[in-house]
C-alpha cells in the first residue's frame, strides 16, 4: 500500500496539454481511475469516509520514514465508487502522496487543477467533494508535522 503515485504532476500536465480537449482528458481520467490502486474492503468504513462528496470516497494515510530522510512521508490511498472521481483522486495522489507533511501543506492543488483546465469541468458540487478530500489530507499532514 505504498506504491508510488500512478503519475507525476509533470506527466499529468504534459498529458493534459497533449490531449487538448475535455473529451480526451475525461477518457484519460477514467483510465487513471481504472488503474488507481484500490482499497481493501476492510478500509471502506465510516471513519475513513470523506464527507462532502456526492459519491462515496474512502481515504487512508500511512506514515513512513525513509532511512535517508529526516522528515516522514505520508502515503495516501483513496478510492471512490465513481470512476471519474477515482481519476481525480489519482491527480490528488500525484500532488500529495509520498510527500512530507510540510510539502503537503505547501502544495497548491487548486493551481494544479486550474493548470490542467479541470476547473472548467468541475461542478461546484464536485469541487466541494474534492475540497473535502484536500481538507482531510491537509489535516492528516498537519497532525503529523
Amino acid at each position, binding site marked *: 500500500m505504498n506504491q508510488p503515485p500512478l503519475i507525476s504532476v509533470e506527466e499529468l500536465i504534459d498529458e493534459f496539454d497533449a490531449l487538448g480537449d*475535455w*473529451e480526451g482528458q*475525461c*477518457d484519460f481520467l*477514467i483510465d487513471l481511475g*481504472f488503474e488507481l490502486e484500490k482499497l481493501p474492503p476492510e478500509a471502506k468504513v465510516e471513519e475513513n469516509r470523506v464527507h462532502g462528496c*456526492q*459519491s*462515496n470516497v474512502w481515504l487512508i494515510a500511512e506514515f513512513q520514514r525513509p532511512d535517508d530522510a529526516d522528515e516522514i512521508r505520508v502515503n495516501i490511498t483513496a478510492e*471512490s*465508487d*465513481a*470512476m*471519474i*472521481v477515482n481519476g481525480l483522486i489519482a491527480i490528488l495522489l500525484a500532488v500529495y502522496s509520498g510527500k512530507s507533511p510540510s510539502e503537503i501543506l505547501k502544495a497548491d492543488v487548486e493551481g494544479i487543477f486550474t493548470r490542467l483546465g479541470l476547473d472548467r469541468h468541475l461542478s461546484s458540487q*464536485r469541487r466541494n467533494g474534492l475540497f473535502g478530500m484536500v481538507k482531510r489530507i491537509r489535516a492528516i499532514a498537519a497532525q503529523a508535522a
Partner: protein
Amino acid sequence: MSSQPRTTSFDADTIRGEFPVFDQPLTNGRPVTFLDTAASAQKPRVVIDKERECYEQYYANAYRGVYQFGARVDEELEATREKVRDLINAEEISEIVFTSGTTMSINLVADSWGRKFLRPGDEILLNEMEHHANIVPWQQIANETGASVRYIPLTDDGRLDIQELDNCLTEKTAIIAVTGMSNVLGTINPVEELARRGKQVGALILVDGAQSVPHMPVDVRKAGIDFLTFSGHKIYGPSGVGVLYGRRELLREMDPFLTGGHMIDRVFKEKSTWAELPARFEAGTLPIAQAIALGAAIDFVNQLSFDAIHAHERRLLEHALARLQDEVPGFVCHGPGLEHRGAIISMTLEGVHSEDLAVLLDRRGVFVRHGHHCTMPLHDLLGVSATTRASFGVYNTLDDVDRLVDAIHFAREKLRLV
C-alpha cells in the same frame, strides 16, 4: 421502434423552435438534449418577450403608483392572477397568492396555517416520495406545535399504499401534504381520493403541484384541494415566482407569513392590521416582471393543451422505456408502470455510478440530473444513494430519447461494461 412515425399530431419540432435556447449547438457541435425539465424548464420566446416587454415598456413597482406605468403593471399582474385562477379553476383571484416558488408556498402554509391551527397530538400526513420542500417545513412546524409527522407507506412500485390509508389517516390527521406527481418516481398520486378521504376525518389537503401543474390539468374545486402550490420556472415561466392557492375561508383565518410593506391595512406604532387577500400574504415587492411573464407561460401551455402535452410526453416516455429496457443491461427504472406515471425516468444502471453517467452523458450533449433530487427519504427507501433522472417537456422529441439511449451505450462503453 424505428418503424414508429417521427412526428405526432403535436409538432414537437415546431414547438422546439419556439425555445431560443435550442437554436445554437453546443461548443462540441452536438445539439442540446435537455432532459432536466423536472428541475427547471426552458423558456419559450413568448415568455422571454413578455418579461422584456415589461422592462422595456412599463416597468414600475406593483400596487403602489397611480401613474400610467404603475397602473399597467397592476393590470398585467391581475391578468396573470386571473390566468392562474382559470388554470386551476379556483373560485376567486383573491385565492391566488404570488410567492417566490413552491418552497415558499409550502413554508407559508406550514407557518401561517400550522402555527395557528396545529395542536399537540395532531398529525401531518406525508409520504416518503415527497420533495424536501414538502417534508422539512412540516417537521419544523411539528416541532414547534407538538404535532407530529406521519407517513403513508409506499407500495413496492412507488405508489401510495392506499390500502394502508385507514391506518394512518385518522381523526388525528390535521392535514395531508402530498405531491401531485413525484419528481423522482413520476408517480401521479390520487389527489382527489385523498382529498375525499381526508374530508371524512376533517383533514385538509395541500397538494404540491410543482411537477403536476405543468403537465396535467388540475382543478382545485373538483378535486377538493385546500392548498395548491407550484413554481413558475417549471411551467416554462420565469424563475423567482410561484403560486399558492388557498381556499378563501382558510386564507382568511391565517396569520401573515412575512410582514412588512403592502401586506398591511394600517400600521400604528404598537400594532398593525392586515390587508385583504391576497395582499396579506404578499409582503414586500413582488417578482414583478416574472409574475407578469408567468401569465404568458400559462397561455403557452393552454394553447398547446394538456391533452396534447400529455399524449406527446407519453410517447416519449414509452419510447424511452421500451428502448432502455430492451437494450441496456442492468437498467432499473424506479417507480410505477406507465399508467401511474408522468414523463420522468429515474434510473440506476448496474455497475455505473450516477455521477460518472451524468458526466459522460453531458459529453454527448445529454443533460440529465443525478443525485438524490431533494428526496433523501425516498432514496433511503429505494436503498440507493443516487439516481440519474431524465425528465421530459414539450420541446423534447423522439430524437432526444434516441440520443439519451445512445449516450447511455457510450457511457457503458467508456466504463468498460461492454
